[in-house]
Structures are given as C-alpha cells and as structure tokens.
C-alpha cells in the first residue's frame, strides 16, 4: 500500500513515454547508412519489442513455471487457467456485476473529490488567511494514512456504499488538494506582474492568469487521484463488502477459488492501466502549451 497522504510532488507526466528503447548503435560507433524508412521501421519495431518484451516474458513465466512444477500450481495456477476462469466469470455476468459495483464507487468518490478539492485548493492557494487557518489541520490529516481512518468511517457511516464512496473521496482529495495549492502558489511571478501592469484586478488576475497557469499541476493531482480511487477502494471492498472486485478477490481466496482470485487481480490491473492512460490523454489535451 503506498503512503496515500504524502504525495505532494507532481509525478512525472512523461513517465509513460520514457519506455526503455534499446538502440542498436552506441554513440561512439558510426551509424550505419540505411534508407531512412527502413531505419525508422526497425527503430519502431525494436521500441515496441522493448516495451513488451518484459511483459511477454512475465506472462510466459506465469504459464511455464507452474506447469514445470517450479512453483506450486495450486497457489499460482498457470496463466491460461486464470484466463479461462476470467472468461467464465465474464460469461456468467458475475464479473460485470463486481466490476460495475467497483467502478461506480470509484468514480463517485473520484468525481466528488474533484468537485471538493479543487475549489478548496484554489481558496487555500489564493487567500492567505484561509491557508494560515487550515494549514495545521491539513498537515495533520495528510500525514494520517487514509487506511488508518477506514475503521472510523465504518464506525460512523456503517458498512454500506456511503462509507466506501467517502473513503475514496477522502483518499483522492489529497493529491488533488495539494497539487492545486502548489499550482496556484507556483505561478511565475513575472506573469502576475505582467498582467497587473495591464491593469488586471485580483478577480480577473485569478481567472485569466492563476487558473490557466495552475491547470497542468492540478491535472497531475487528478491523475494521481485516479490511481488512488481504485487502490483504496479495493482495500475497502476486501475489508467489508458484498460486491465489487475487492470482494471478488478476497472471497475467492478464502473459498479457495484461486483461478477466480487471479481473474479479479488481472481485471483490476487492466482497469488501473486503462484509467491512467485515459487521464494521461486528457491531461495532455489540457496542457499542450507546456514545454515538453
């Protein structure tokens, strides 16, 4: 479980692009003269292979090691069996049901966190009295792991949907809130000076300079929150729920349906990847002006 409260630094947005690319020629050796198109094709192919090689290797090991008896196939069934179980769950409609329940909770908490944390972060970043007033409380709570507070939520809100959505909302608020504050506070002072010299008052300065300048930083927080929304929900569902992917994984494990458990884990990995990719795409759209 990552430390949910303390992620202040914007994660590198370009991480997904920085896949290891094995280049055949080292800088010291002269580059062989090949037609440009062939060279590009080769490079694209090797990039793709480099990107997927590790994944393919991992999947191959997952299939081979249990079959060879290196790992116990009872605890780690071969990949093909897990995928079959996944397919059965899909066809029976169970997977859809669990997935739907999880996504609804995640998205509800995530969207509420955006609606709550962005305005609050803007207020804290812009109005010094608000910041002075709230800073000690924020400091205290952001250093308290969200997971530690789950029992409190359950105690107050019961074990229903409200608790899970609130839990996701709480965990997702932090990265959004902290990034929004830092986005507002780190606007280039010269831009503010320039806008003020053109006679902009505080309200229009905020609207026309502070807000647009902070958008990329805010979005980094939103992207982090997207990942958290799934991470923490899974935890909540494992502790107490009657549906959801976390419940599926936990219940399968305790009733020894190991293939189903892995099917649930595979699903959650895929969802996490997809969601992150979606947010990265949206983020890029919003910050095309950021110098690469």
């Amino acid at each position: 479980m990552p430390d949910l409260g303390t992620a202040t630094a914007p994660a590198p947005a370009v991480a997904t692009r920085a896949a290891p690319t094995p280049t055949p020629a080292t800088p010291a050796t002269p580059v062989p003269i090949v037609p440009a198109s062939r060279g590009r094709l080769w490079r694209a192919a090797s990039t793709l292979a480099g990107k997927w090689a590790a994944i393919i290797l991992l999947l191959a090991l997952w299939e081979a090691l249990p079959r060879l008896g290196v790992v116990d196939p009872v605890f780690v069934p071969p990949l093909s069996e897990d995928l079959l179980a996944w397919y059965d769950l899909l066809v029976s409609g169970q997977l859809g049901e669990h997935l739907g329940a999880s996504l609804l909770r995640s998205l509800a908490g995530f969207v509420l966190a955006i609606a709550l944390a962005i305005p609050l972060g803007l207020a804290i970043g812009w109005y010094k009295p608000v910041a002075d007033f709230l800073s000690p409380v924020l400091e205290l709570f952001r250093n308290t792991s969200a997971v530690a507070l789950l029992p409190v939520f359950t105690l107050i809100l019961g074990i229903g949907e409200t608790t899970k959505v609130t839990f996701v909302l709480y965990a997702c608020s932090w990265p959004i809130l902290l990034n929004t504050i830092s986005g507002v506070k780190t606007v280039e002072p010269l831009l503010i000076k320039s806008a003020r010299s053109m006679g902009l008052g505080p309200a229009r300065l905020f609207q026309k300079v502070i807000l647009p300048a902070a958008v990329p930083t805010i979005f980094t927080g939103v992207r982090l929150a997207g990942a958290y929304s799934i991470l923490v929900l899974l935890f909540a569902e494992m502790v107490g729920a009657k549906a959801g992917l976390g419940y599926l994984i936990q219940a399968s494990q305790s009733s020894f349906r190991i293939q189903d458990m892995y099917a649930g884990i595979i699903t959650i990995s895929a969802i996490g990847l997809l969601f992150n990719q979606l947010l990265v795409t949206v983020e890029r759209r919003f910050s095309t002006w950021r110098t690469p």
Partner: protein
Amino acid sequence: MTVAPERILTQTKIGIRGVSKTFQVRGADRPFTALDEIDLDIRGGEFLTLVGPSGCGKSTLLDLIAGLTAPSSGEIVIDGTPITGPGLDRGIVFQQYALFPWRTATGNVEFGLEAKGVARRERAERARHYLDLVGLAGFEERYPHELSGGMRQRVAIARSLAFDPDVLLMDEPFAALDAQTRESLQEELLGIWEKTGKTIVFITHGIDEAVYLGQRVAVMTSRPGRIKDIVEIAFDSREGDLRADGRFGEYRHHIWTLLRDEVAAAQREEASSVA
C-alpha cells in the same frame, strides 16, 4: 549638443519629481535605499534610454513609472496627473518576455485588449495587425514555446503596442537575445517608434544600445540610484550604419567614462557585502 528640432517643443509626458524608494530589509537596522531623489522629465514622443551599473535601481524606477509599486517619497506624474497604479496608458516589455504560455501569439496580443474591454472581432483584427507590424505574420497560432527568443519578444512588443499605450516601458528587452537578433529588433523598434510616435523609456546595460536607440541617454549612479547625467544624442539622421559614424564613438566614450566610476563603485560595494 542639439536636439532634433521637431522634438524641442513637445511637452513633458512623464515627470519624475524627487522620487525616492526605500525597502525594509530583513535583519538590517536601516532601510535600503534603491533610488534617491530622482528628478527626470521625459518628453512626449521621446525615446529615452537609461543606463547604469547593475543593481542601481533601473528596474525599480521602471516599476514606479508602471505604477506597480509606489515611491517612498516624491511623485511621478503622467500628463500632469499623479500615478496611482498600473494602467493601460503604459505598456511594459520585460527581458524575459512574460508571455502567457497557454495562449497563442494571437491570444497573448489579445490579452491587454481583453483587459481594455475591446470587442472580440476587433481584438482579432488588432492582434493580426500588430503581429504583422512586428513581422510575425503567419505565426499567429503558435504557442510561445514554439517560437524563438526573438520571436517571443516580438510577440511581447506587439502585445504592448496593441492596447495602444502612450508610453512604452522596456526593461532590457533585448538582453537575452543573440547579437544578430538584437540588432534587427533594435532597428525595427526604431521604425515602430517613428511610425507610432510612442514615448519610450528603454533600460539597458549596453552603452552601444543606449546610444543607438536613445535621443537622450540618462546615466544613473551606483547604489543608491541617482541620475548622474543626461546626454543628448544628436544625429542628423538614423539612416545607414550609425555605429560607424565618428560621433557614435564619441558618445559611446563619453557615456563609458560617466559609467566607469559608477561600475567600479558598484563592484566595490558588492565585494564588501560579500566579505
């Protein structure tokens, strides 16, 4: 020295009267004096360059004229009215361009027009006109990070011209550019000045630049900043290679001599504050 005749009769545009600026410095028992009793009249339509050693308060003076800060004592008047804050009758061009990176060249030029409340269609029209004036036709939809340093500064100049201020305040606008780009922008700025008749206050630390651009060069002392001398630059014409003119060298040397003692004083002070 003589002044170009058509400019003699023009009235004072900006009057700086006994202006001082002090800052409270943390840990120091006495306030820090950046500017001390500055008196300077800038005429309407004049191109005035301001040179001085680094840290002499040139930029502070510009901030005061812009209305971004208030003087500790004395007053600055524009057309006889004291300055109370920033306004669109003055436009600033900064050394670091200060373009809004999320706006295209057009969007940046329109910024001041939005502040002025110009209607959308006229904004677009004016933006195109001024980008064309600074030689950026065809680059309207580029973002700042897609433009070179020289082009960015052209956008910044277009932005300041677009809302049609009487006064253009320029804070070492060409200092970050390479020599070639700087020279062509200097030439274009003179062209724009002649075409538009703006009053220009131009800060620089380059003596050549000051002599080449200015009708008058105001030389400032090292800390605390005062006006040491004002040198009238009188060329019959600015056509051709001005820098090859014999008088260019004379002006240059004269200002260099005025500055030499000040630069030495500034360096002594810097050294003693480090020690």
